[in-house]
């Protein structure tokens, strides 16, 4: 992403209306948060608030689209490239929308030795997406993560916010079916 496009990105276009305008209350929530930061007292150190601001923004919007990045950059007086550089470095942040149901298979060591790779393969096979992808209907995202600290229940799958322990391949289908039922 070139930083000199930053003046253009907020302009809504016919096929991609500005996300911030589409969700005024979300925009307001983020602006209120950014305005509440003690930036004035942090001369030269405003960047120190960047990561927490991105955490908040992602909690509000679900991901970090360009419009949101521009807003954060402006408030913290940073270059858009600095903001994007941080987003691309940390795996927690994403600039792409994620699925309604987030399936994250733990691929930490304890889960690995108890067969996490087979569970991950099985989700990929059933959902027809690879790790890091979202299904076309926007229902599922599939990811891997490193140790949620529930190693005693290995292999572990995070289904949205819940920890599912001792997962075996035949359970994969059931987990997916349960999510679909909840989704209706």
């Amino acid at each position, binding site marked *: 992403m070139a930083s000199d496009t930053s003046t253009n990105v907020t302009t809504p276009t016919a096929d991609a209306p500005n996300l911030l305008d589409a969700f005024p209350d979300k925009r307001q929530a983020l602006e209120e948060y950014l305005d509440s930061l003690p930036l004035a007292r942090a001369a030269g150190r405003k960047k120190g608030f960047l990561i927490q601001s991105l955490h908040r923004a992602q909690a509000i919007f679900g991901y970090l689209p360009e419009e949101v990045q521009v807003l954060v950059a402006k408030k913290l007086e940073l270059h858009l490239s600095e903001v994007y550089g941080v987003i691309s470095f940390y795996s927690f942040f994403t600039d792409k929308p994620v699925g309604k149901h987030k399936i994250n298979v733990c691929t930490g060591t*304890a889960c690995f030795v108890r067969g996490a790779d087979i569970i991950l393969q099985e989700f990929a096979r059933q959902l027809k997406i690879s790790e890091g992808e979202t299904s076309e209907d926007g229902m599922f995202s599939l990811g891997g993560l490193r140790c949620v600290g529930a190693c005693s229940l290995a292999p572990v799958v995070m289904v949205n916010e819940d920890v599912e322990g001792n997962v075996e391949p035949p359970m994969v289908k059931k987990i997916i079916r349960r999510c679909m039922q909840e989704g209706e």
Partner: protein
Amino acid sequence: MTVAKPIITNSAQLTEFTAQTRTRMSDVTKINILVSMGTCGIAAGTTPVLKALEESLAAQNLTGVKITRVGCMGLCHSEPTIEVVDTASGKSVIYGNVKASHAEAIVAAGVHPAEGLKVIERGWYYPEDEENTQDAPQARIVLRNSGRINPEDIQEYIAQSGYQALCKVLLEMSPKQVVAEITDSGLRGRGGGGFPTGRKWSFANAQKPKEKYVICNADEGDPGAFMDRAILEGDPHAVLEAMAIAGFAIGAKNGIVYIRAEYPLAIERLQIAIHQAREMGFLGKNIFGSGFDFDIDLKFGAGAFVCGEETALIASIEGKRGEPTYKPPFPAIAGLWGKPTIVNNVETFANVCAIIRNGAGWFKRIGTTGSPGTKVFALAGKINQVGLIEVPMGTSLREIIYGIGKGIRNGKQFKAVQTGGPSGGCIKRDQLDTTIDYDTLVLLGSMMGSGGMIIMDEDDCMVSVARFFLEFTLDESCGKCTPCRIGNKRLHEMLTKITQGKADMQTLQKLRDLSASIKDTALCGLGQSSPNPVRSTMNQFEDEYLAHILEGKCPAGVCADLVTYSINENCTGCAVCKKRCPVDCIRGEKKSVHVIDAEACIKCGMCLSSCKFNAIDRK
């Protein structure tokens, strides 16, 4: 930040308050039911049990019985766990695998073990409070309060002598004396490196600038390690108090806990603890009327392993990409915002208050001469009793794995234990009698690391394990230096070839050479240690590498390209495997021998593990 009225401003008030708190608690509470509410407890289903206990308590109309939500007891193998304590006598009983339906019986039984429930031996003692009369293998200093107090209630911490160490330090000691006491205790950093904590503090203490920082490293990146999480969830004040002590010792007013965003419960409990400590006047301005100011902020990680490295961590707090920088200068000289900064691990801090309360001499009596104290380990993998343990340094691996961990699951053969995570190595069967401390593990070609211990059995392929760790490093490499970015990629490719049976003997030599040059030339600890799992498995399990290369076989039967599954004539046609197969590749009539469609088979091994008749062959 809410500024509340400080209640305690000098040591006399604290002593009195501690005494009052204790009396108040023991007056009201005769029986205390401790319910383990750490992340894994909750995942294993503690919440409905808690609810059932509360309902039973109300229904049975008992007085003097209290239910306390506590952090992890370390008994992950038997979650949900509950301990019932008689507060007057200290007698207690621990139950494992508790269900909501047990609640009534537990409440009614008091400390006499309720019938039909799984009772667990305690297995540890508290060096600060008692002699080891039962010869318990575990000693709890760091986990002293974890599983015993409600981490969300500062009064319970105070009743366990909480904040007395800070009070002693501020009112009776000079910063130099504090540094000397910690130096004398021989405490070494528990974050992996084992650097003497007192020495680190003395560097920062000697620096001129007025602005200094104390950082607690709660990034806990080693996958398969969860002791820092358990400490923060179970006893957050112990870490906050120690950070304030460190602040006084080096002359810093600001503390920061850098914690990974994947630990929401630990974050919540830390926030509550910081808030309560401020309210009580243990954080903030003029603590205990001493004139010393100290406060603590939280900063969150965002999913980057390398941010556990201290210079990368500092870059991350400054809002940058978490790329490590060259040392020197060390953070103690020029760290956060260029100011003197000490970075210590959660577990390191969790030792500090006990050392101040009991003295360096007391601490040195536990553990070994070179590594005093205890170490917390997260036991995971193919072991019967998975969990969090704390043992004196110098305990043997055999004691840990066969004594405390109760041996290998499903009666299988032990193959190796991996310590030190992605920077560490594997230890073999014939080295099980090694006693562990920082130095012995290095001699074995592994390292202490942060305390993850993954136990592997005959079904684990060591080439795959090495490949797994490299995959991790590749994912997590920040990309700044070439040896780590490109070198590890090549290592990974070679290992992949071996697991596919496509490598030759030259590959093995190349692996060795490249590993050595990455170790010597990478920029930071992540890169320098990344070939360790490869080197260690090649040294210890060369026969497995050779079997893949020369015979095209994976002895453990893990590498999918090198194994096939088939069904032999033992098959009774029970069709269990057919039902379990996730890809429906098993065919056959009921009561006759089935067959596996080798083309469709994904080699997951479900059929093998589900067959009761030894009818599945893996070759």
